[in-house]
């Protein structure tokens, strides 16, 4: 037992210190924006494949999709810079919620299977790209969102936008 505080006091101290660290993971808007960019990237690229690469519309959607993909990558680079500047590198979602690691793997396998089915059913790889982009975008959003809003998660809503 801690020499200077009661077990209950020690637990409360530990809980608030842990929550203060976990709360600095990412801004509240980050999961939704990155999920939308990921889905938009693959939807743009998939649409370009469906339209036909030589059409002007295909070039526009393809370029827009590529731009969203670059923005998606850039958002993560900026997030890492933000972590380093703030002085707290958060735990990866699989470590913060280890029980969800296997579930995420199964969901990812399901998304890959759904994309393959879309390809087989339509005969166009563009549909597989679109299905994968939207489904994986939603999964990405759901995977990192609980860290901000789930009360059982180490992160707390109160400090989600700290720094």
């Amino acid at each position, binding site marked *: 037992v801690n020499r200077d505080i009661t077990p209950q006091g020690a637990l409360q101290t*530990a809980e608030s210190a842990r929550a203060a660290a976990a709360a600095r993971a990412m801004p509240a808007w980050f999961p939704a924006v990155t999920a939308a960019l990921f889905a938009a990237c693959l939807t743009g690229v998939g649409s370009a494949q469906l339209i036909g690469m030589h059409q002007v519309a295909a070039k526009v959607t393809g370029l827009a999709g590529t731009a969203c993909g670059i923005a998606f990558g850039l958002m993560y680079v900026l997030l890492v810079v933000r972590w380093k500047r703030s002085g707290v590198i958060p735990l990866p979602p699989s470590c913060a919620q280890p029980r969800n690691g296997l579930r995420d793997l199964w969901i990812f396998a399901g998304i890959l299977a759904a994309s393959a089915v879309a390809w087989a059913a339509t005969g166009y790889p563009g549909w597989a790209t679109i299905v994968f982009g939207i489904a994986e975008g939603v999964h990405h959003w759901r995977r990192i969102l609980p860290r901000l809003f789930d009360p059982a998660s180490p992160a707390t809503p109160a400090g989600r936008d700290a720094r």
Partner: protein
Amino acid sequence: VTSAGPDGRPGLSEAFATTPRLKVSAFLAGCAEADFATIAEICELTPATLSKAATTLENAGYLRIRKGHIGRRPRTWLSLTKAGRSAFEGHLAALSHLTQQGQSAAGRP
């Protein structure tokens, strides 16, 4: 020094027996790695107190200290080792067990 808990897992640990060491360990349990100055600021510890707590935890094998740079500024990064995380979770579980025991004893007629 770590005593075994009721289920055989690591229980209360002497390494977390002071408030500064408990705060530092709890903060590091909530993240992968953190900067010395940030921990001192958020945990409301003086650099000297944090340094002493970090050295004790490092000697116990529970904490890793890494020197790095952000631009030209030198930074000291602290993180819990795997053994440190395990011992800290065991310590919290033992504290929780003690709290429950105390509450049930207080509730007895």
